[in-house]
């Protein structure tokens, strides 16, 4: 009897440990996604290796712990080359979010700052195709994108007037992968931000009219009726890596 108790306690301990790990990141199995950003001319499917992704976006409280451990990322110390003048300007001080906002998603963080946060967790920002795979899911389906009702629900979020406090992270229902707030809370940085507006066709790169490739990515986009994803790409591609925005947050992946 005593031994059995012991086994039960160990098992319970393991379950708690597994629960703690599971609480932060959800595993996403390898798979493919019919992508809105073709990897190459004539290639419409992107293969995504297995990875794990934070179940919820990074909160102000999470980010405050990072800043405490890495004071070079305080808003009064981070060089402007990595984060513009809006960096964490909504916080009460260089080290503390405004009272009552610890559970809200952190915003006004640059791509460099978000990358540094994830690096400090032994992780990285999600890549676009990873993000696209996760964002295609609804509660019960890995890819719900062909469902007009699902698309409409996302578009309704964009149509909602901005302003007012952001909801706390984790309020959204978990999707098929157990990941929350993919839609409806904030925009999110991706690791390969610098690839968003490049055409998948390198024959175009000698064309002087394309110059910095402005618009060439958009010209080769698939699923032109998927406005929600087009808006996300448009938002990301309007951001440089040092920019911050009141609606741009992030989460990490591994």
């Amino acid at each position, binding site marked *: 009897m005593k031994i059995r108790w012991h086994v039960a306690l160990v098992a319970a301990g393991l379950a708690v440990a597994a629960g703690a790990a599971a609480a932060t990141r959800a595993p996403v199995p390898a798979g493919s996604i019919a992508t809105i950003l073709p990897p190459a001319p004539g290639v419409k499917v992107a293969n995504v290796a297995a990875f794990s992704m934070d179940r919820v976006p990074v909160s102000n409280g999470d980010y405050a712990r990072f800043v405490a451990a890495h004071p070079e990322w305080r808003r009064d110390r981070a060089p402007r*080359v*990595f984060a513009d003048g809006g960096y964490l300007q909504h916080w009460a001080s260089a080290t503390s979010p405004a009272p009552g906002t610890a559970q809200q998603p952190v915003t006004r963080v640059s791509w460099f700052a978000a990358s540094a946060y994830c690096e400090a967790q032994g992780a990285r920002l999600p890549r676009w195709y990873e993000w696209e795979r996760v964002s295609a899911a609804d509660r019960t389906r890995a890819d719900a994108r062909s469902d007009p009702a699902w698309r409409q629900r996302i578009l309704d979020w964009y149509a909602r007037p901005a302003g007012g406090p952001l909801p706390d992270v984790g309020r959204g229902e978990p999707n098929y992968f157990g990941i929350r707030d993919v839609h409806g809370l904030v925009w999110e940085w991706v690791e390969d931000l*610098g*690839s968003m507006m490049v055409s998948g066709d390198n024959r175009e790169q000698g064309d002087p009219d394309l110059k*910095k490739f402005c618009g060439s990515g958009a010209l080769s986009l698939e699923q032109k009726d998927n406005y929600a994803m087009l808006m996300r790409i448009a938002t990301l591609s309007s951001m440089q*890596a040092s920019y911050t925005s009141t609606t741009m947050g992030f989460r990490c992946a591994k």
Partner: protein
Amino acid sequence: MILAALMTCSLAAFAADGDPPASLYHLQAKLIDQAGVAHGLDVYRGHPVLVTMFYGSCQATCPMIIDTLRVTERALTPAQRAELRVLMISFDPRRDTPAALHAIAGERRIDGARWTLAHADEATVRNVAALLNLQYRRLPSGEFSHSTVISLLSARGEIEASTAALGHADPALLAALRD
């Protein structure tokens, strides 16, 4: 192994030295030049530097990038040219090894005293491209699709001018160089 990972391009920690807030030299990057020597991004600290990114197996744009850098140099006085440095960082860590870059430098008769062709790890490539606001993507073929940006850095690593022009010296870049 862990130490090696920590020593590559890191954003979690950067030098809080006296560089200006807009200096690219805040980035702790790890470059290896065509002679196999390791450097930071500030390999040419103290000099004006034309910095750009390329990849060695590129057939079209990249030879033009070298030509454009040369045309720009030639438009300067010998004294200005002697002061100027050129840093070309490869997008392609897999194929552009220091040995491969050494071969390119030989083929293109690159002046190793003033020009560096640099190998960089993936994280450094991503961060430098972000600092230069340069777009690139590895294609399934192993080629890269990328925008072209040539930036002029000050002695302390601030971007003073940038151009997307290829094939001729950009007048705005030249004006900044002659300042």
